[in-house]
């Protein structure tokens, strides 16, 4: 069973929900797909046993064979190649690695090269595994690194994917192929606005979903009204609690210190499994 935890708005408590869910069910695999700002390791303290660089494929030009016809540059949809009558420039950060320039070059002057975009890390905390990616500062493209993190999914286990905020390509890449998605929101106008956008994305992708309302007690009731109207199940409510906020600030998953929450997260998992038909 693969469950994604996503949100639209940032800072609603995705990582907190993902980690507390994971440690409550035990023996899990947690994939932190927020490669721009991975945070799950700051709550789980895994022993990192494995680190590897992650590369994207970029064109590498053999200047001797190149006759400056410019076909590669006009083919590239991402403006990653600039060609003039004297010079060809390649911009690795813009390249999506489609390989089209290699296919189009009539002189076979382009081969595949490598460009480092980040690091993949794996480690264990008890019987459970954490896999995450760290995008290099200045590298714009998160998607290839997310793809690499997800390549390590072990489907024989319970897998939890911690998604980045937003609703664009990195989120799509993360939730793609999940059996269920938990959307974490807060009962505020910002929370509601971004929840609606994310629900739209998941409906288009036909991924079943449910909502966790975090920091209840603040804000208003509109998130509840929306969920009722849109027939979206609310799976769990977590109150705004100074103690929970303080534990999080220290890097402690609150269900560890407040064990009554473990049972609630196990129920959340069972309900997600039932709704996913697993």
């Amino acid at each position: 069973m693969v469950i994604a935890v996503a949100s639209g708005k940032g800072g609603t408590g995705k990582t907190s929900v993902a980690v507390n869910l994971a440690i409550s069910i035990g023996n899990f695999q947690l994939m932190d797909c927020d490669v721009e700002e991975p945070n799950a390791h700051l709550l789980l303290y895994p022993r990192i046993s494995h680190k590897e660089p992650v590369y994207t494929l970029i064109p590498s030009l053999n200047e001797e064979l190149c006759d400056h016809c410019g076909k590669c540059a006009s083919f590239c949809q991402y403006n990653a190649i600039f060609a003039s009558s004297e010079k060809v420039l390649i911009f690795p950060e813009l390249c999506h690695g489609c390989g089209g320039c290699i296919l189009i070059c009539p002189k076979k002057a382009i081969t595949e090269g490598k460009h480092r975009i980040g690091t993949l890390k794996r480690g264990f905390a008890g019987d459970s595994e954490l896999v995450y990616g760290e995008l290099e500062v200045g590298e714009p493209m998160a998607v290839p690194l997310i793809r690499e993190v997800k390549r390590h999914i072990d489907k024989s286990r319970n897998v939890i994917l911690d998604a980045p905020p937003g609703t664009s390509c990195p989120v799509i890449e993360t939730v793609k192929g999940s059996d269920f998605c938990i959307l974490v929101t807060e009962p505020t106008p910002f929370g509601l606005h971004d929840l609606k956008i994310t629900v739209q994305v998941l409906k288009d992708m036909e991924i079943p979903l449910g909502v966790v309302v975090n920091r209840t007690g603040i804000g208003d009731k509109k998130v509840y009204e929306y969920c009722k109207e849109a027939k979206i199940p609310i799976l769990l409510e977590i109150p705004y609690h100074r103690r929970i906020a303080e534990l999080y600030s220290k890097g402690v998953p609150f269900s560890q210190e407040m064990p009554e929450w473990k049972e609630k997260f196990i129920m959340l998992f069972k309900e997600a499994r039932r709704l996913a038909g697993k």
Partner: protein
Amino acid sequence: MKQITVLSGKGGTGKTTITASFAVLAKKAVVADCDVDAPDLHVLLHPEILETQEFKGSKLAVIDEGKCIKCGLCREKCRFKAITQDLTVDPFSCEGCSVCTIVCPVNAITLTERISGHAYISKIKYGFMAHAMLSPGEANSGKLVTLVKQNAKILTEKEKIDLIIIDGPPGIGCPVIASVTGIDAGLVVTEPTMSGIHDLKKALQLLRHFNVKPFVCVNMYDVNTDNTEKILNYCKENGIKVVGRIPFNSKVTEAMVAGKTIIEYSPKSDVAKEIVAMWSQLLAELGLR
């Protein structure tokens, strides 16, 4: 003309609350919401849309079933696994690279432009606003951010305004890079949590990478004063100015529910006072006062 971006690394630290307050305090500015996939600034600033533009950010492969001979070459050559087993295009995976169009032996595939969102030019009570909405699930948010920034710039020229205040998206990837290139200062809003500190460092690294002058604001600093101390020390050691320390106050959420900035909703609150002080310090740093 000066540009300042409010960013954070970590989401939910208070970027939008602070940006909207700055807009009110600036009285006449262009505000740009560059969090194009989850924009929230309009909830507080109530823009009146003057102009809407279609954003064609990416392309999508379309297979002409009448011509297709089911050879499967497109599926084989696609690096994004965007061609399904029954040879249809998965729009969520297609990155519009056009490799399939050149490998297809019968020219059955073409690229079409897709409308990936809309950009807006609006009027607000305190000046003007450039914003956008990426269609849910679309790619190329960086390009849309660049369009929003261009619109903001055009507005400053037309309306003779000397300041753009930019609300940035969370993270450090393509839309964030697009939000910080070419600006005069970056204000990183953080919170005193382990993740807040971790993400603050990344955001500061990003500003350094693009040669942007950094400033820091610790929001909800009283949630964990030990961590706040760590942030202040870190900034001191690295020569970075901390321009604000904002306490936790439930009035911020109340203001949001009322659709107002904290400056309008509760001008005498500790939060509002701190934001006012921070703004005058930033104006002085930008040489605008």
